[in-house]
């Protein structure tokens, strides 16, 4: 009898202490690759784990190599993490699955930049907290411009004057060097069309690629390649324009903050400067994309409270400051926009400032495709590729792209 009582007491004590500890593990999914897992792991170890350890929360990061398909399967089979990356342009599709938790009333979205909150809002519900953002900048290789005796690009450049400088660089340096690597990608070329005042969707939700504002941007981009002033990355054995730039083969790159963290890692001695994207001669304005990624919570998580705590730690001011200084992206918190980091005088910090300024200068649109998803950009990318490789004229390619876009159903 006495023994049973003792056993009972021990049991009560044990369960009691277990309850107090309530150890839970929160799993986070994000993309694999070279940069992200390293930075995210570091971020988790330095800022997130210490912040939530007192609540008995443990955090693990599980990267997916082929992110979006794998996340789809994980969500469908119920194996997705409690928290995961949600890319701005993919958001609509994932929100439609109903497996993402609306955060209204759970997370205060006021401290975050409004445009970024809007990117993850569908019918008044917020499905993700933007972790950071990026815009495009004009990054130039100082040595190449010096060698070619061409002045550096400035913030007052127009697309035409920039093209001119690139032609001069190409002429001076000749074989093996190029003005730029341009990929057949709306995600870059679209910024020029926005500068010209082109609208992605008109009032009826239709896209017009035959609009002269789009056509002239399209021609600026493809003509450089046809003149051989620019090349496609694959033509010089590079995977993306940043790699051409890293190898010192191209005078400029039109990329975002990710180029800074990449160069910091891969070409620490490369001397580069960063300017705002050029203006359109016709409108006198700039255009740009706003790229963003959010953290979203799995609607079926068994540990909602813990997941929300981790979400808060992931988007905390300290965590965002760290991402900023890694050079990868710009924080999504309004308060961090007056950061002392922007006043520092090294090339990565200066570049970060330009990425930040790019978001509020000229016509800036979220990188996304409305209700269509990335399928929308396929016809445009195909047209870019066809023209850049000399298979088709710009007129014919755009006509076909417009027909393909009209056939997109959703």
């Amino acid at each position, binding site marked *: 009898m006495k023994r049973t009582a003792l056993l009972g007491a021990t049991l009560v004590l044990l369960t009691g202490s277990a309850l107090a500890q309530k150890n839970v593990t929160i799993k986070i999914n994000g993309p694999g690759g070279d940069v992200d897992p390293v930075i995210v792991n570091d971020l988790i170890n330095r800022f997130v784990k210490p912040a939530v350890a007192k609540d008995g929360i443990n955090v693990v990061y599980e990267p997916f190599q082929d992110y*979006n*398909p794998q996340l789809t399967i994980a969500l469908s089979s119920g194996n997705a993490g409690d928290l995961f990356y949600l890319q701005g342009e993919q958001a609509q*599709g994932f929100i439609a699955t109903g*497996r993402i938790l609306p955060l209204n009333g759970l997370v205060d979205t006021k401290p975050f930049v409004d445009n970024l909150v809007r990117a993850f809002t569908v019918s008044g519900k917020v499905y993700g907290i933007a972790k950071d953002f990026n815009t495009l900048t004009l990054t130039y290789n100082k040595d190449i411009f010096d060698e070619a005796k061409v002045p550096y690009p400035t913030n007052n450049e127009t697309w035409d004057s920039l093209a001119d400088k690139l032609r001069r660089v190409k002429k001076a340096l000749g074989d093996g060097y190029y003005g730029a690597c341009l990929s057949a990608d709306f995600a870059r070329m679209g910024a020029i069309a926005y500068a010209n005042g082109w609208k992605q969707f008109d009032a009826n939700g239709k896209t017009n690629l035959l609009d002269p504002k789009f056509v002239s941007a399209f021609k600026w981009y493809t003509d450089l390649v046809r003149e051989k002033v620019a090349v*496609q990355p694959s033509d*010089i*054995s590079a995977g993306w324009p940043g790699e051409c730039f890293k190898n010192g083969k191209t005078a400029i790159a039109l990329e975002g903050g990710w180029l800074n963290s990449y160069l910091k890692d891969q070409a620490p001695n490369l001397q580069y400067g960063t300017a705002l994207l050029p203006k359109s001669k016709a409108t006198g304005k700039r255009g740009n994309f706003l790229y963003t990624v959010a953290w979203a919570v799995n609607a079926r998580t068994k540990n909602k409270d813990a997941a929300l705590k981790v979400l808060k730690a992931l988007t905390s001011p300290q965590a965002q400051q760290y991402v900023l200084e890694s050079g990868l992206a710009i924080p999504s918190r309004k308060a961090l926009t007056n950061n002392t980091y922007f006043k520092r005088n090294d090339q990565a910090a200066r570049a970060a400032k330009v990425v930040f300024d790019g978001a509020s200068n000229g016509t800036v649109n979220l990188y996304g495709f409305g209700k269509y998803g990335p*399928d929308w950009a396929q016809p445009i990318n195909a047209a870019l590729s066809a023209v850049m490789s000399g298979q088709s004229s710009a007129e014919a390619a755009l006509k076909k792209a417009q027909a393909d876009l009209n056939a997109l159903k*959703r």
Partner: protein
Amino acid sequence: MRASPKRRSDLQQTATALMFLAPLLLSLGLFFVYAFLRALYYSFTDYDLFNTPQWVGLRSYLAILADDRFRIALTNTLLFSAVVTTAQTIGALLLAVVLNQKVRGLGFFRSAFYMPSITSSVVITLIFIWLFQRRGVVNYLATQIGAYGPVIAAFIALVVVFQAAQVLWERSRGRPARALDPALLWISVALGAVGVWLALAFGWIGIRSVEPVDISWFASRERLFGLIPIPLLFIMIQNTFTTIPTMMLFFLAGLQNVPSALYEAAELDGASKFQQLRYITVPMLRPVTFYVVTVSLIGTLQMFDQVRIIGSAAPLESIITLAYYVYNNVFPSGSLPRAGMASAAAVILALLTLVIVALQRRFLISDEAHS
């Protein structure tokens, strides 16, 4: 009544057999039968991986048949399968016959020829992309051939002339000389080289300066004979290259079972090497050929990985195959998966494979193969 001892031991044997078969049966049942039935069911629903599937009858099938992209994928798949299966079978047979000879270093050649099969197809695809990229080796070689065109043409012409002269001279002296007699050929090649060197030195021929060949093969929208998209042609070449060795192995194994007495008899009757191949090797290898063609058909009809790796480097409509069409429907970017459509496409692909294999069994390979 008790079971007779014989019957009991029969039962026992069956049980033992089943036990040994169990792992395979289980995995077949789970990953094939069950998966196939599920896919069949989903193909009649509007399943999107997240909803409760609703029965929609044949709607997915009708939508697929009306889809332009499906028709392109079907054409590409059939072209791919026909070309690659043919090239693979003939190539593998010839390689096997060659490697069945008694030559020095046989082991080395056998391993070397087998290498492509055990190299990861991802790696091989990447190498092909590099070879055929705009500043790649293929364009470079094409440029060089253009530049050295006159030299190469002169060399070939000289070799032919010298060889013909030598062979005629030998024959006029009553000696049996074959047209491509190796000893004479060496002399012709040497004389040709000297001739070209002299022609270059005297400036009769020169190296032309030509525009570098600048074709981006993968972005090409051209079609070979107006039929085969150029990017698909690369996948064909590459797929043939990587699978020939495996097929060759089957043929090699088959060749070991062809009695050498047949060849000896044929040789005594004065049959040429080609006649031996045509009338002994090919018929004797029928059962193996049936197997090779079947495996090849199934593999090519369902080809996916090489298309996926080339991905956005080539225009989708030039490379999309049925298997890739299925994948594209499960993971359309930025919208809900169309698992219903994908399942229907997969069922169509399965039926297609079945029909084609049945047809080739019925018409291409005669009855003796089935014994």
